[in-house]
């Protein structure tokens, strides 16, 4: 069985986000970019399944500008067998990505797909669901535990829901999106970085895959959250109560 994993290149989780002065989006120039943390978890899970002998190949897919190759190299250094880069200089929204991904699934015919539950840049949390919808495959989102039964071709997935755990059983092929507590991704070791250099990254464009990338919506404006006002130190409980009553109107 082949597993396909989507990995997105995003502004590094630890970087402080700055909005562009013209409010058209987030500043990405001269900003550290890394693999989306949820995608890292998705890839890690796929690798563990392969290492357990339940899959034969892990293919990592990334879409976006030329530098996505760096993200794919990270994925290959973690252990993916090969990469696919769909190059696009125009921005891709979740439906575009889902359509392209669906086309690649038709070409590659994987038995299982992993995606992160969301990307930390736009927080859309849509792509996995759309891919499942377009493919008409079963889906389990927000996975915190995945167990595969190779013989029965069934995946059992635990997901954290409010106040407990929900366990789903899916027939393969299926789409699984990954949550934070599913696993702890491995580091890229030097020997694996070396090996990754000779792994293949295949390139496509959306046009080659016959996917029309247009958007049905327009981003009107991106703004920063309102700045928090500095706190004040009150000198007595009475003053605090007074402020809560008369200034904050909280009590």
């Amino acid at each position, binding site marked *: 069985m082949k597993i396909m994993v989507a990995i997105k290149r995003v502004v590094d989780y*630890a970087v402080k986000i700055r909005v562009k002065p013209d409010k058209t989006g987030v500043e990405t120039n001269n*900003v*550290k970019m890394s693999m989306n943390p949820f995608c890292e978890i998705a890839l890690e899970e796929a690798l563990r399944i392969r290492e357990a002998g339940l899959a034969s190949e892990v293919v990592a897919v990334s879409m976006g500008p030329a530098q996505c190759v*760096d993200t794919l190299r990270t994925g290959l250094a973690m252990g993916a067998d090969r990469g696919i880069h769909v190059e696009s200089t125009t921005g891709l929204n979740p439906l575009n990505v889902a359509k392209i991904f669906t086309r690649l699934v038709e070409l590659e015919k994987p038995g299982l797909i992993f995606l992160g539950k969301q990307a930390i840049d736009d927080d859309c949390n849509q792509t996995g669901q759309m891919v499942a919808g377009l493919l008409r495959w079963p889906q389990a989102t927000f996975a915190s535990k995945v167990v595969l039964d190779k013989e029965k071709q069934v995946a059992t997935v635990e997901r954290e829901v409010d106040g407990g755990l929900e366990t789903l059983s899916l027939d393969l092929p299926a789409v699984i999106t990954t949550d934070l507590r599913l696993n702890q991704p491995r580091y890229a*070791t*030097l020997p694996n*970085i070396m090996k990754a250099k000779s792994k293949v990254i295949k390139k496509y464009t959306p046009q080659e895959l016959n996917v029309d990338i247009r958007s049905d919506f327009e981003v009107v404006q991106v703004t920063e959250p309102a700045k928090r006002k500095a706190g004040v130190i009150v000198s007595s409980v009475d003053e605090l109560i007074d402020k809560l009553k008369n200034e904050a109107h909280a009590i």
Partner: protein
Amino acid sequence: MPSAATPAPCYFLQFSFYSSPLGLPFFFTATTIATSGRGGLVAAFTGRWELLDASCIARNCGRAVSSPPSLLPFVSAPRALHASTDTTIMRFLFNIRNLHSPTAQCTSKCEEDEKKRFCWLRFDKRFFGSAAAVIERNASFSTLNSDDVSYFKDLLGEKSVVEDEDVLLTANTDWMRKYKGSSKLLLQPKSTHEVSQILKYCNSRCLPVVPQGGNTGLVGGSVPVFDEVIINIGSMNNIISLDKVSGILVCEAGCILENLISFLDNHGFVMPLDLGAKGSCQIGGNVSTNAGGLRLVRYGSLHGSVLGLEAVLANGDVLDMLGTLRKDNTGYDLKQLFIGSEGSLGIVTKVSILTPPKLSSVNLAFLACKDYFSCQKLLVEAKRRLGDILSAFEFLDNQSMDLVLNHLEGVRNPLPSSMHNFYVLIETTGSDESYDKEKLEAFLLRAMEGGLISDGVLSQDINQASSFWRIREGLPEALMKAGPVYKYDLSIPVEKMYDLVEEMRIRLGQTAKVVAYGHLGDSNLHLNISAPQYDDKILAQIEPYVYEWTSKHRGSISAEHGLGLMKANHISYSKSPETVRLMGSIKKLLDPNGILNPYKVLPQSLKSCH
């Protein structure tokens, strides 16, 4: 008791109690930290209890421990206590444990948890170093009286004159909890003028003072030895200016290093120094100790990057040397005297410092080496091949790694497949992401083929880089948690450096653990001896041997931490008698009454207050 099905909330209790050989009362502090089952910190509480009735405390603690993790509803009586012996403490701990012994319905999993919980109930015993026992209070100093306190209150306002016992206990105790003074007064000036008035007054009264920054110093320099008045500069924390063309930052001395780092980050610059204590230490403290840190190999020492200073002398004179020029050869460069003089010549109130531009591409490798020789060769190679982008070269030995893994929560061994003898961190900082990465990768692969590196990982994002740094930067903290520690901060030629560590292991045998790490890129070894207790017999095995050894190899007994109280009497291992004598004359000239940080930096034999 949590049931086995839900993620078990875990409770963490840590106790420390202090005693001093001078017969001062015991202090007992407990930190209770409750973490949720997911590992996030929910609440933390620190308090002290009077240890008169152990079972009463156990009851209080018991309530705290068994309450929901989001709330720890107990209030302590913050008072010093007169506990007698370890047994009281032991009994007390057993009481807490008993409160938590698994009840009938608990499954074996709970018993597992219970075992762990007992391990968390660890307690550290800290005996304050015996330095104070051999130093006598300088009899010509006066003692603080109520008139003095009123004077300071008039001058600074009530809020900036602190007599609160709790606050003073913290300010009197150093970061390692090894040195403890008994000052009755902490002053928090808000301006240079106030500092000047304070010193002028203290000088006229012959009242000794300790300048204090973030109190993270590691040589006992930042706390009083006896009753010196503590002057903390923390309220002077304004950033005055940043020249965005030259990168010259001017700020007050009480700015916390980490705040400066993030301020500069927003403007595209970086501080030329970085160290593990950045969250607490102040730039004034950094300058006064001439702190080195993790990036010295790239940006050089503060003697180069500090362009100007404002300092207040013992008599209250304000020296305005706050230049912002890179080049200024007019007479003696007096500001250099204040860089690294540990508050013994004046109080630093403002700093102007040259900050390099922030470069966007930072890479970090965490590597394993089979022996020390490989670390050395790797350093030579790194300097040669990564010269323009190399920004840190740090090392630790496997005892250090062990210690971090055992004592710091959430730290993960990046190279878990086998234990290695040495670990090296190499950081590069440059302006071209793909060029830098390629260069570093090529270097590492070559080093690996050549056998210098036995394994390694390369961080792929900032989060990974922070967790690699955490291992190196968390070492002082891990050592603290492990118990009493004798710390040595030595400059020794790189080839010889690790010989000392091996010799110390042989000398000490099983009595103490020898842990070594440091700034290999600057030939700076941090030799740490982690002992079950502070013990004069162990100390006699270490000192003066370590100092003599270092001196014999023409090293320095203080590479970057300073002399403070710990090494004031040992200066001659690294400096000639003529040099020390001249230092004494300078001290006498600038601080004739010797009120500034007495008993520190220079040997006792030189000091006098007439």
